[in-house]
């Protein structure tokens, strides 16, 4: 009895398997016919690019840089007199031959909603630094964009531009004094574009405040935040311009100020920026001119501590730079930059013997000249001369030759 029942089950299974097979076969026949019909109808098939599993590899590019430099003063002693040390990489390049930062840039769409990018910097002293690692939404609709991770803040004009795309080898003095070279934080950014024919861009960032002027507060919430707005457009076919205003706020704790002194309090910075580019008929490939400038104004209020002695500190300091670069024939450009810091008003209950650097009433300034040759958009060789009066009473004469080479995926030309 039991056997019969089992046999019946087995038979049923075999039968159903057989019918399933028949079904599958007729389906295959049908599909074959349909494919043949389609083949007759469709034009010659275009061969698909044979890239296989590499088709989804992200875009990879690499930037190689190096300098040969000569300076009359020792770059290791570099400081900006009259201003609190910003702790960033602000010193002029090392004397003699030295490798610059090699940047590895990997970027790709993640899915239809996100895009990701990593910029890893291989430093000449054999360490790896994550310069940028962020995701970004190409469009949330209504002109909104979101970015998160570590990235160069969008304040000012030059801040979001990578060093290899700068027109001079080093950062302008106000960037060195007020931002430690640049603001590169772990943050989120929201940006909105107005639905107008004139570019109107408004945005805000909230970050950890991992570097100058903040001090990595190790607390819940943001340690640094920014607001920025930019407006830009064209004047005729030949000129394009953009101008903007940015604000940065941080509340540093025990930030080093001078030998043995620390600052805790509030720091806010305003930046006004301007850039204009001109080319005959807007055709920049033969000749073009670029003019840019930024004005920085910082106020800091709080407490200074020197050798366990507390004191008050308040400062209003400013700085600016203006530069112009002229491409006078294909491949060749020359440029001039003037930058200057104003010591402004600094008041403290401590004496200048206790705070020699910060209380030095000195206005640093610098003249820089450059000429560069770019055989293609992937290579550039630059000669740069500077007369640097960052240090009180000292004129540092600098000469450097720099190379910048880009390999791999085509980089984009940011404005």
């Amino acid at each position, binding site marked *: 009895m039991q056997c019969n029942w089992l046999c019946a089950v087995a038979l049923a299974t075999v039968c159903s398997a057989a019918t399933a097979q028949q079904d599958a076969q007729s389906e295959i026949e049908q599909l074959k016919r349909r494919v043949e019909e389609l083949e007759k109808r469709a034009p010659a098939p275009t061969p698909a690019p044979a890239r296989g599993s590499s088709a989804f590899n992200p875009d990879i590019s690499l930037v190689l840089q190096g300098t040969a430099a000569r300076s009359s003063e020792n770059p290791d002693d570099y400081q900006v007199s009259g201003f609190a040390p910003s702790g960033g990489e602000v010193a002029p390049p090392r004397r003699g031959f030295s490798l610059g930062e090699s940047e590895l840039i990997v970027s790709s769409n993640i899915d239809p909603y996100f895009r990701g990018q990593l910029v890893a910097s291989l430093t000449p002293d054999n360490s790896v630094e994550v310069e940028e690692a962020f995701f*970004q939404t190409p469009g949330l609709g*209504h*002109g909104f964009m979101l970015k998160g991770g570590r990235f160069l803040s969008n304040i000012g004009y030059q801040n979001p531009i990578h060093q290899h795309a700068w027109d001079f080898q080093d950062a302008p003095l106000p960037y060195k004094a007020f931002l430690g070279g640049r603001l590169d934080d772990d943050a989120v950014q929201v940006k909105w574009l107005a639905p107008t024919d004139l570019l109107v861009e408004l945005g805000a960032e909230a970050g950890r405040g991992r570097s100058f002027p903040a001090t990595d507060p190790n607390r819940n919430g943001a340690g640094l935040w920014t607001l920025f707005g930019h*407006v830009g*457009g064209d004047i005729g076919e030949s000129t394009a311009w953009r101008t903007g205003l940015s604000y940065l706020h941080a509340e540093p704790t025990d930030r080093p100020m001078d030998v043995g002194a620390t600052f805790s309090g509030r720091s806010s910075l305003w930046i006004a920026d301007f850039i204009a580019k001109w080319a005959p008929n807007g055709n920049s490939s033969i000749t073009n001119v670029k003019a840019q400038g930024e004005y920085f104004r910082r106020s800091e209020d709080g407490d200074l501590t020197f050798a366990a002695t507390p004191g008050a500190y308040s400062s209003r300091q400013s700085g600016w730079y203006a530069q112009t670069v002229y491409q006078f024939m294909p491949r060749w450009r020359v440029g001039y930059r003037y930058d200057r810091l104003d010591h402004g008003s600094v008041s403290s209950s401590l004496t200048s013997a206790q705070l020699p650097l910060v209380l030095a009433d000195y206005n640093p300034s610098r003249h820089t000249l450059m000429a560069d040759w770019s055989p293609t958009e992937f290579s550039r060789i630059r000669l740069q001369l500077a007369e640097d009066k960052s240090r009180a009473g000292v004129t540092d004469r600098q000469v450097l030759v720099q190379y910048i080479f880009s*390999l791999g995926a085509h980089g984009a030309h940011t404005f």
Partner: protein
Amino acid sequence: MRLLLAVLLAAVGLQAHAALNILACTPEWGALAKELGGDKVNVYTAATALQDPHRIEARPSLIARARNADLMVCTGAQLEIGWVPLLQSQSGNSKIQTGQPGYFEAASAVSLIEKPTSVDRSMGDVHPDGNPHLHLDPRNIAAVAAALAERMASLDSTQASYYRSRSQDFLARWKDATARWEKQAAPLKGMPVVVYHKDLSYLLNWLGMREVGALEPKPGIPPSTAHLSELLEQLKKTPAKAVLRSAYNDPRPADWLAERARVPSVMLPYTVGGTERAKDLFGLYDDTIDRLLAGVK
């Protein structure tokens, strides 16, 4: 109450008839979008004929236009790789991202020529997908027009029949004009010429002309004195009938060579707006053919 209703209806009506905002990367696609879209579209063109299409910058005005675009019409094949990806990523506009219906590439509608078998940057500014300057063959314009009209119809379905009928009308006129140009240009067949950049390949290919040299030693590398002298030596042995360049090219190297090789230097509009006569696509071809015929007379 009635007034409010009327205002609301008018607002809805306006919304329904809001024109399609088109951002064209280069003038030829701007002109084509106008031919197909008539008064139902607003067209803004990012580059002019006097600007090198490889080297446009993602300037603020273009980011603002990209933010408001419903459709972006570009060449593709990496011609605009230096600036279109930036416009896409900085515009905050999800409609015009690659892969979305609001991003149209002309190269997707035609088959490209001069597809390199291998690419390396030592070869200069080569485009791995093939030569992207595809609009100087009228047959390509026809193929792109048909595909673009369909794309516009699908994005703005209320006006679909309008775009389709304009497209049919354009294609009929274009077919007649193409036949006329081919007849006019018959004497140019087999003629050897020197070009500036590889941006006239489709034109030469269509008219059966022969390229015997290029002023650029490698694509995208500006002409050097050494290369020009070499070219001059070569022309003494195998002469060319003319030195051709596009409106956006530097005239000096072309004139230098033409003067020494004792051949005419012919400037071609390259795209719509390149010369006074090249006001639209028809004018572009009329003027191009007349200039070629006049140059080699």
